[in-house]
C-alpha cells in the first residue's frame, strides 16, 4: 500500500494534465469530506492489468458496465465452465467496478452463492479472481451491495489464517470495507471472532498483511460502538503490545504499517476505555522515541507522508497527558528533546500541512500546563522566538500559542521575566489588535499574568496598553482591572 502511494508522486510524461485532474479530484473530495459528519473511508485494491494486447504495460482499458443479461450469461458460462473461467471472472470483475453492475449482480438470485462458491474453491487462480470480485463489491457506495457480501465473512475470516500474502491482503481490505459499512456487518463480524483472528494475524511478518490489518483495525476502532463493544476486546488481547512494536519498528520499510497502527492507537487512547493498560505497556516512551526518530528523519531528507504518522502520535500523547490521574499512572514525560522535535515539525509543516502545527501546539500546551520543566526548557532551549513567530498565523494557531505562553507565564516571576526579556510584549500588542474575541481574551490573560508577576513592567508600559483599551470596548474592563 505505502509503496504504491509513494509511486503516485513520481512525475511522468503525461504528468501535468493528470496532476491537474488529480488535484481537482482531491479538492472535491476535501470539500465533500468537510461537509460530512462522519468520514466513511473505504480502500480499494485494484491493479492495472499488467499487459495489454500488444505486450506494452498499460492501463486496464476501462470496461463498460454489464447489463443484467450479460451478468447472467457470464455466471452461467462460469458455472458450465465452457470457456476459461478465469477470463470470465476477470470480465465480471471489470464490470463490477461500476455501481450499476454491482447492483444488478446482487439482485440476481443465486449470484452471491455462485461467487462465494468460486471464492472457496481449491483452484487458486479462480479463487483470487473471485476474491477480487468480492472486493469490488465490498467497496461499493451502495450499502445494499456491501451488505450482500455478508455470507462471505466467515470465509474471509477463515482465510486470514492462510499464508498467501496477496490473498490475505485482499481479504483484509475486503473485510475492512465491509466493517466500515454498517452496524449489521460488525454485529456479525464480532461473534465470528474477528478480534482473535486479527490478534493471530498480527504476528505475520509480511508488510502488506500488516498494513491491511492495521487498516481494518483502524476502521473497527472508529465504530460508534467501539468503546463498549470493540476496544475492550482489543485491549484484552495481544493486539496492543504488537501495535506498539509495529508503530516504532523499521520505519524505512513499514511506514504504511506504522501509519495504520498509530491511528489505531489514537482511536483507542481517545476513547479513554483503559489507558492505564497502555501506559503500563510503555506507550508513552514508545511514542516519544518515535517522534524523536521522525524529527531526525525530517532533517535528513524529505519524507513523503510523514504528517500522516505524526498527527495521530501527537494526539495520543496529548490525550494521555490530559488524562486524570488514574491508578496512580500519572503520565510524566521528561525528555526535553521532545520540544525540539515539536518545533522542528512546526517549522517543517507550517506551509504544507498547517494542521500539524495545531497538533504540536496542543501537545506543547499539555506539556507546559503542569510541568515547569518544559516551561523552562522552552526558554533555555531558546525556542521562544519560534513560538512568537507563530502568533501572526491562523486563528487557532495564535490561540494555542498564546495558551502556551500563559502556561509559561503562570509559573512565576522568573519565567515572566524571561518572557519579557525575549520581547513578548510587542507581540502582544499585535495580537490585541486582532478582531477575534477569543484571541484578544487570551492575550489579555497573558498580559494579566505578566503584570501580576512583574508589577514594574505593568507600571512602565501600562499607559501603552491603556490606549488600546479605548479600542477594545467591552474587553476594556478586564484590561483596566489588570493595569
Amino acid at each position, binding site marked *: 500500500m505505502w*509503496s*504504491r*502511494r509513494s*509511486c*503516485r508522486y*513520481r512525475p*511522468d510524461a*503525461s504528468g501535468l494534465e493528470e496532476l491537474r485532474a488529480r488535484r481537482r479530484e*482531491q479538492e472535491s473530495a*476535501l470539500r465533500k*469530506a468537510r461537509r460530512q459528519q462522519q*468520514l466513511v473511508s473505504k480502500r*480499494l*485494491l*485494484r*491493479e*492495472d492489468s*499488467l*499487459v495489454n494486447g500488444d505486450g506494452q*504495460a498499460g492501463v486496464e482499458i476501462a470496461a463498460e458496465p454489464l447489463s443484467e443479461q450479460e451478468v*447472467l450469461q457470464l455466471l*452461467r458460462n*462460469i*458455472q*458450465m*465452465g*465452457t470457456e*476459461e*473461467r478465469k477470463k470470465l471472472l476477470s470480465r465480471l470483475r471489470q464490470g463490477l467496478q461500476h455501481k450499476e453492475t454491482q447492483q444488478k449482480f446482487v439482485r440476481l*438470485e*443465486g449470484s452471491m452463492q*455462485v461467487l462465494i462458491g468460486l471464492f*472457496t*474453491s481449491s*483452484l*487458486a*487462480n*479462480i*479463487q*483470487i479472481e473471485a476474491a477480487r470480485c468480492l472486493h469490488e463489491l465490498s467497496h461499493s457506495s451502495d450499502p445494499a451491495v456491501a451488505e450482500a457480501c455478508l455470507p462471505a465473512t*466467515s470465509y474471509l475470516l*477463515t482465510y486470514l*489464517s*492462510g*499464508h*498467501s500474502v496477496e490473498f490475505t491482503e485482499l481479504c483484509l481490505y475486503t473485510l475492512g470495507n465491509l466493517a466500515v459499512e454498517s452496524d449489521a456487518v460488525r454485529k*456479525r463480524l464480532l*461473534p*465470528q*471472532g474477528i*478480534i*482473535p483472528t486479527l*490478534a493471530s494475524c498480527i504476528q505475520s511478518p509480511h508488510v502488506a498483511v500488516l498494513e491491511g490489518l492495521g*487498516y481494518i483495525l483502524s476502521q473497527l476502532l472508529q465504530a460508534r460502538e467501539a468503546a463498549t463493544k470493540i476496544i475492550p476486546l482489543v485491549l484484552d488481547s495481544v493486539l496492543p503490545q504488537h501495535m506498539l512494536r509495529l508503530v516504532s519498528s523499521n520505519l524505512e520499510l513499514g511506514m504504511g504499517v506504522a501509519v495504520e497502527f498509530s491511528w489505531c492507537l489514537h482511536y483507542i487512547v481517545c476513547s479513554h476505555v483503559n489507558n492505564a493498560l497502555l501506559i503500563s505497556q510503555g506507550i508513552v516512551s514508545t511514542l516519544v522515541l518515535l517522534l524523536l526518530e521522525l524529527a531526525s528523519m525530517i532533517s535528513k531528507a524529505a519524507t513523503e507522508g510523514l504528517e*500522516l504518522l505524526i*498527527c495521530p502520535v501527537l*494526539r495520543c500523547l496529548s490525550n494521555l497527558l490530559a488524562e486524570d490521574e488514574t491508578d496512580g499512572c500519572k503520565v510524566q514525560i521528561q525528555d526535553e528533546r521532545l520540544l525540539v522535535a515539536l518545533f522542528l515539525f512546526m517549522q517543517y509543516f507550517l506551509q504544507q500541512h498547517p*494542521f500539524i502545527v*495545531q*497538533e504540536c501546539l496542543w501537545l506543547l500546551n499539555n506539556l507546559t500546563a503542569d510541568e515547569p520543566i518544559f516551561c523552562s526548557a522552552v526558554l533555555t532551549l531558546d525556542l521562544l522566538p519560534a513560538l512568537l513567530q507563530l502568533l501572526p498565523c491562523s486563528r487557532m494557531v495564535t490561540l494555542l500559542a498564546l495558551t502556551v505562553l500563559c502556561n509559561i507565564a503562570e509559573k512565576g516571576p522568573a519565567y515572566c521575566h524571561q518572557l519579557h526579556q525575549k520581547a513578548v510584549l510587542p507581540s502582544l500588542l499585535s495580537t490585541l489588535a486582532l478582531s477575534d474575541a477569543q484571541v484578544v481574551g487570551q492575550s489579555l490573560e497573558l498580559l494579566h499574568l505578566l503584570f501580576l508577576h512583574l508589577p514594574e513592567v505593568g507600571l512602565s508600559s501600562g499607559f501603552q496598553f491603556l490606549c488600546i483599551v479605548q479600542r477594545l470596548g467591552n474587553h476594556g474592563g478586564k484590561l483596566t482591572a489588570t493595569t
Partner: protein
Amino acid sequence: MARDGDIHRHLYLQDILTNVTEVTERSKVSEFCCNIVGCCQVFDTLEGYEHHYNTLHRNMCSFCKRSFPSGHLLDTHILEWHDSLFQIMAEKQNMYQCLVEGCAEKFKSSKDRKDHLVKVHLYPSDFRFDKPKKAKSSTKHSKPPSKLDASVPMDVNVETYEQSQVDSMEICPSESVANPTQPVSGPISSLQEKKLYKSRIPSTICFGQGASRGFKSMKKKV
C-alpha cells in the same frame, strides 16, 4: 479540534488507486511448474505459485488428500477424521472443538458444534470447512443428473488431489466450482443437459505421447 488531520487521513485512505506509472510489484518469471509430485500446474508469477501451493499443497491431509485453508483446520480435521483415539475419547468427553479463533468451547458431537457455530458465531449452516465425517469415506460422488443437488457443496474437502488435477486440465466442464445450491435465475434445462455428458477423466490417462499433463494455456501473453 484539528479535524483537518482526520480529513487528511480520510483522503489518504481513499486515494490509493494504483496508477499508471507504478512499478508493478508482481514480477514475472519464466514459466515453471509446481514442484509437488503429480501436480502439473504451471505458473509465471511467484505470487500465483505461492497461492496455489498454499491452497492445495500446504495444508493437505496425507490420509485423504483434502486441502484446508489453514494449519488449524487441518489439525482439527486429522484429529476428528483419522484419529481413532479421538473417537474413543469423544464417547466420554466433549472433544469437538469450536472452529472460531478465540472460542474454547468443546462439544460432544460434530452436529452440536455446528449448531453452536450457527447460533453463537453466526456461521452459515453450510460452512464448507465443517463437514461431518462420512461413514465410508468415498472420493467418488455421482451426481443425480435430474437436478442440481442442493446438498452438494463446492467443496475443497471432497475433491481429491487427482480431481483438482483433472480440473486444471480443463478438459471437461469441471464439477469443482460449478455447483451452486441454486441455479442462477434463468431456465434450468440448459444446465441439466450439460451435466449429462460430464465425465471424470481417470488420472492414469495422459493426452498425447509423453505430453506433460499441465494446462499450458495459463501462459499470459507478453
